[in-house]
C-alpha cells in the first residue's frame, strides 16, 4: 500500500504531497524533510529504493524533481518504480512536455491526475489514455505561453521517455526534448 507520494525538487521544495495515512502537519513536515535528506544524497549508481522507517521509498529523479512513493516493505519495488514513470508520462501528455513549473502553476490539476491513477493508497488506473483523458484544446497547453516564469531550471522538461541511466545523465542538460511518442 502507498503511504504517501511526494514530488520534491533538489532544493527540497515540495511540488506535490499526497498522503494516504493520517498525519498531523508537524509529522508531514518532518517526513518531507527526512525524505529529502534520504533521497538527495544518493547517486545514479545507487538503487532506486531506500529503507525508510518501517517502510521503503521508491523514487526516481526527473531533471530537478524527485518523485517518491513510500510503500510497505514487502511491496513490489519495480512495480512502483514503473508506476512513477507511468505517472510522469501521463503528466507529460497532460501538460505537453511537463516541467516543474507546470506542477507549480497547475497544482490543482496535478491532484486530479494523481487521484485518477492512485486512490486509497492503491494503483487505480494504469492506462495512460484513460488516466489522461481525451485531448484538450491546444490553446491552453501551448508551451512557453502557459506561465509567466517559464524559463530557468524549473522550466526544464522532465524527459520522462528517456530511460533509466540516460535520464539521469540528461538531467543536467537544459535541452527541450521533442514531445515524446508513447508506445
Amino acid at each position, binding site marked *: 500500500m502507498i503511504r504517501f507520494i511526494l514530488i520534491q525538487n533538489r532544493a527540497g521544495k515540495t511540488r506535490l504531497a499526497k498522503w494516504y495515512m493520517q498525519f498531523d502537519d508537524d509529522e508531514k513536515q518532518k517526513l518531507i524533510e527526512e525524505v529529502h535528506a534520504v533521497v538527495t544524497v544518493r547517486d545514479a549508481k545507487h538503487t532506486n529504493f531506500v529503507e525508510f522507517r518501517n517502510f521503503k521509498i521508491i523514487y526516481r529523479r526527473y531533471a530537478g524533481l524527485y518523485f517518491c512513493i513510500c510503500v510497505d516493505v514487502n511491496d513490489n519495488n519495480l512495480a512502483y518504480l514503473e508506476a512513477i514513470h507511468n505517472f510522469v508520462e501521463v503528466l507529460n501528455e497532460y501538460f505537453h512536455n511537463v516541467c516543474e513549473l507546470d506542477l507549480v502553476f497547475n497544482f490543482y490539476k496535478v491532484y486530479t491526475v494523481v487521484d485518477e491513477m492512485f486512490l486509497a493508497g492503491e494503483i487505480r488506473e494504469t*492506462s495512460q489514455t484513460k488516466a489522461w483523458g481525451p485531448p484538450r484544446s491546444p490553446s491552453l497547453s501551448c508551451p512557453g505561453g502557459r506561465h509567466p516564469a517559464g524559463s530557468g531550471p524549473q522550466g526544464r522538461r522532465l524527459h520522462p521517455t528517456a530511460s533509466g541511466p540516460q535520464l539521469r545523465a540528461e538531467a543536467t542538460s537544459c535541452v527541450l526534448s521533442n514531445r515524446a511518442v508513447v508506445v
Partner: protein
Amino acid sequence: MPAVSKGDGMRGLAVFISDIRNCESKSKEAEIKRINKELANIRSKFKGDKALDGYSKKKYVCKLLFIFLLGHDIDFGHMEAVNLLSSNKYTEKQIGYLFISVLVNSNSELIRLINNAIKNDLASRNPTFMCLALHCIANVGSREMGEAFAADIPRILVAVPRDSMDSVKQSAALCLLRLYKASPDLVPMGEWTARVVHLLNDQHMGVVTAAVSLITCLCKKNPDDFKTCISLAVSRLSRIVSSASTDLQDYTYYFVPAPWLSVKLLRLLQCYPPPGGPWQGPCPRQVSWAGGELSQDVPSISSEDAAVKGRLVECLETVLNKAQEPPKSKKVQHSNAKNAILFETISLIIHYDSEPNLLVRACNQLGQFLQHRETNLRYLALESMCTLASSEFSHEAVKTHIDTVINALKTERDVSVRQRAADLLYAMCDRSNAKQIVSEMLRYLETADYAIREEIVLKVAILAEKYAVDYSWYVDTILNLIRIAGDYVSEEVWYRVLQIVTNRDDVQGYAAKTVFEALQAPACHENMVKVGGYILGEFGNLIAGDPRSSPPVQFSLLHSKFHLCSVATRALLLSTYIKFINLFPETKATIQGVLRAGSQLRNADVELQQRAVEYLTLSSVASTDVLVRARSPPGPLHPLSLALPLLLTCSRPPTRQATVLEEMPPFPERESSILAKLKRKKGPGAASALDDGRRDASSNDINGGVEPTPSTVVSPPGRPRGGSTWGIVSSHLRLYFLQSTPSPSADLLGLRAAPPPAAPQAPAGAGNLLVDVSSDGPVAQPGLGPTPEEAFLSPGPEDIGSPIPEADELLNKFVCKNNGVLFENQLLQIGVKSEFRQNLGRMYLFYGNKTSVQFQSFTPTVVHPGDLQTHILSAWPSPLAPDLPPGLPSWDEMDPVSGFLDRWAQLAVQTKRVAAQVDGGAQVQQVLNIECLRDFLTPPLLSVRFRYGGASQSLTLKLPVTINKFFQPTEMAAQDFFQRWKQLSLLSGPAPNRRRRKSSKPPTPWTLKSRRPSSWVWLRLLDNVDPNPENFVGAGIIQTKALQVGCLLRLEPNAQAQMYRLTLRTSKEPVSRHLCELLAQQF
C-alpha cells in the same frame, strides 16, 4: 477526466503564484506581505455584497488552497468551497472537492453540507461527478463519511454494468477499501461480496486493477468468503501472461501486458495456500496460511483444483520462461515491468514452498540477476534470495552463489546493496560454509559503513556461536570482533562469550591464553579489557604456570589498562583483582596496595570507592583461603555503612555461608540474547531467513519505527540465575562483573538489577544473607526494606503477588521435614502438615487468626508459577472433603477431571475452598491433594488474601512441596551403584552437577545419621558402598506420574579443608542441579 474547457486557466491565480515566486527570491517578509494582501482581498470579495460568480469563487478558493499548501493557516473560505460542490461545472466542483480533501475540517455544520453534496453527486448518474465524490470520500476517509456512505458504495460497485460506469466502479472499489481499512465495522459484508469477486472477470482492466486491491484486503480477514477468487485470479492471470504483447492495448506498458495487474493478482494469490493443498510433500508453512484449513481438509485434489493448479503452474512457468527471452525493447521500462512480474512470481513460488523445480528455477534466475548491470536488479535478487535460502528445497541452490555474494559485499557501491548481501550470507550460512562466511564478514567489517556495523557484529556473533565446531574458533571470532569493531560490540555479544566460556571448561584455558595475548596489544578496546578482566579473573589460573603469563604479569597487564578505562570497566577490574587474591595469594600484597591507594579509597566515584573499601576489607578480614561467612544482620543497616555490617557479622556464628570468590557456576542455557537483539533491531524481517520468510509489515505504523526502541528489555546473560547453590551472593558477584551499577546510589551489591528474590525460579538458597541485606525491588536502603509485617500489610495486587522475601528461607526449613509452622506474623499463623507417598501427597494447611477481629474475604489460592503447568482445581466436590478417612484419600474419587490435566502440567494440586470469614482466634483448615505429574523445579505458590479491619492484605508463600518429597528410597549394591554412577555421568552434559562448598563444619556421619529417620528417609543411605568410609552415598527414585527419575547421591566431606563436596546424579540434568541446591542448604 473530462475535456478541459476554455476558462480553465485562472489568470488571477497564475499572476498570484508568479508574485509569490518573485517574493521567494527576495525575502520571507515580502511573501508574507503579499499573502496577507491577497487574503484581505479574498476576504473582502467573499464578504462583499455582490454575489460572486462560480469562476471567481473557484479562483479565490484555489488561491486559498495555494496559500495553505505554502504552509500558512487558512481560517475562512470553507463555506465558499462547499458552495462550489454544488456547481454544475466540473472545474468548479473539482476545486471545491480538492479544498475539502486537503483542508478537511471536523466542523459538524460543514460535514453535513459536504455529505449532502456528495450524496447528490453520487446520485447524479454523471460518472465524472460520481468519481469526484468518491475520491473525496476516499481521500478524507473519516468515520463520519464512513457512517454516511459505507452502505451505498457496495451498491455502486456491483451495479449493473454500463460502459460509462467503469471508472465509477474503479473509484468505488478503492473508496470502499479505504473505508474498510479505516473502520471495518462500518462496511457490512453481504450479498455484494460474492459479486465483488466476479469483478475479476470484468472486461475493463481498470476495474479489475482496482477490484483486486479491494479483494486482497477483504480476503485477509475472511479467507473463506473469498476463496472463489483463486480460480478467477488464476484464469485472469493466465490470460494476461499468455497474451501477445499488444493484445491489451492501453494496458500494455512497454510491450509488457498489464504489469501492475499481474503483480496485484500474484499478490492476491499469496493470501492463500496453493490450490488443491500442498503440491508436494508436507509444506512447512502450512500453518501460517490465512486459509490454512483449505489445505488441511482436502486430502485428495478435486479435479477442479487440479485444473486451477495446472493452469497456475503453467503461468508461473511462462513467466520464468519469458525472463529468458530476448527483450522486446532496450528501454529500462520494459525490463522493469517484466521483472516486476518475475519477482512477484518468485515471491509466490517461495510462498508455496512446495515445488522444488520452480524454486530451483527461481534461484537460478535470481543468480543471473546477481551479476546484472542494473543495481536495482542486483539488490532485489539478493533480497529475494534471502527468502529462498530458508526453503529446504532451494537452500543448496542458493549456496552455490556464495562467491558472487561475497563479491557483492566487497564491491557494491550502494550500502543498501551491501547490506542485502550481508543478509543473504547470514541466511545461507550453515555448518558447511560458516567459517568462510564469518571470515568474510569479519574482513568486511574492517571497512564497513558505520550504519551497519552493529548489525554485522551481531550476525557474526550469532553465526559463530551457532555453527561453532570448536569453541576456540568461536572465542577467536568474538575477540576479533572486539578488536575490529569494539565500539559496535554490544553488551549482549561480549556477555555471551563470557557465558559460553564459563559453561565450557574445554575452552577456558584457550580463552585465558587468547585474551592474555590480545591484551598485550598497545591499544586495545575497552570491551576487550572487560572480557579480559573477566576471563583472567575466572580462569587466569589456567595459564599461570607459564612464566610469561605468571600471576604478577597478568595483574600488571590488566592494571596497565586500568587508568584508561571508564568507571564501569574499572569497577569490573576491581572485582577481577579481588578474585586474583583468591586465585593467586602471591598477588595479595600488590593488589591490596592498589586498593589502598588514595585514588581508589577516596575515589570520587562512589561505586569505585565502595568496591575498593569492601574488597580491601574483604581481603584483610578473610583468612588465607578467602572465605567469607556472613549471616543476616539483625537490624536495619545504615546505608552508608553497607560494607561493614556484612563483614562484621563474619565473626558471629554463621547460620549460612556463601563463598564469594568461587568460580562462577555455569549459566543456564537459554535463547541467545544476541538473537533477540538482532530480531528487535531489524524488526520482523530480521531473522527472516532463519525462521520466517515473509515479512508482513502491512500493519506497521509509520511512527513505530522511528527508532528501534526495544519493547522488551533483554536481560543480559549475566542476570542471576535462580538456582545457584551460591545463592544470591554469587549472583551478586556476577552482577559485579556484568552489570556495572548505573548510579552511585546503587545498593550494596547492585541488586537493583537483580530480579526480586521472589521471582518464581528464585533458588531455594535465596534465603541467605544478601536477600536480607538488600531487600527486594527498588528499595535503596537494604536493611530498611519492608519487614515481613510491612510487606504483609501492604495491599497486594489483584493477581498473585511475588512471594515474600523470606519465602525461600521458610521453604528450606521444610525440605527435610513435613510438619511445622510455615509462616507467622502478628495477624496470621499458617501451619502445615503433610504426607507423601510415591507421586501423591496430601497437605493440610491451618490458617490461624491471631487477632480478635474477623478476617473477611479470606481466600487462599495455590498456583504453580512454572511455565506450562498448573491446573489448580479449587472446585473440588465438597462432600468428599470433610469426612475423608485419615491417610491418603482414594485418588479415583478425587480426580474427576484428570482429562483436564495436560501432559505438560508438572503438578496437579486440588484445593478445597475455605470459608470466606475467619473469626478472631479461630483456625481454619484446608486440604490440598497434590499429584506430581512430572519432575518440577519450582514449588507452587500459596497466595493468601483477606481483609482485616478494612485493609486488604495479601501474602504469597512458597508451598513446601519440593521434588525430594516424591522420593522413594532404593537399596543398591556397591557394584550396581558405581555402574549406574558412571552411566549417569555420561548422560549428564558438560555442566557438572556437583557443588563444592566450603563449610565451617563438615557434616559428620552422626549429624547426618542422627537426622536419618525424619529427614533422610527419602534417600536410602547405603553403607559399605563407597570405598572411603567418610563418604556417604545414597540412592532413591523420584516418583512422578509420567516418569521415574533415578537419583544417586555422593557426599564427600573433607574435615581438614573444612569443605565438602556434594554430587548428585540423575538422568535429568536440571533435576540434579535443583536437588543439589535444595540439599546444599541443609548442611
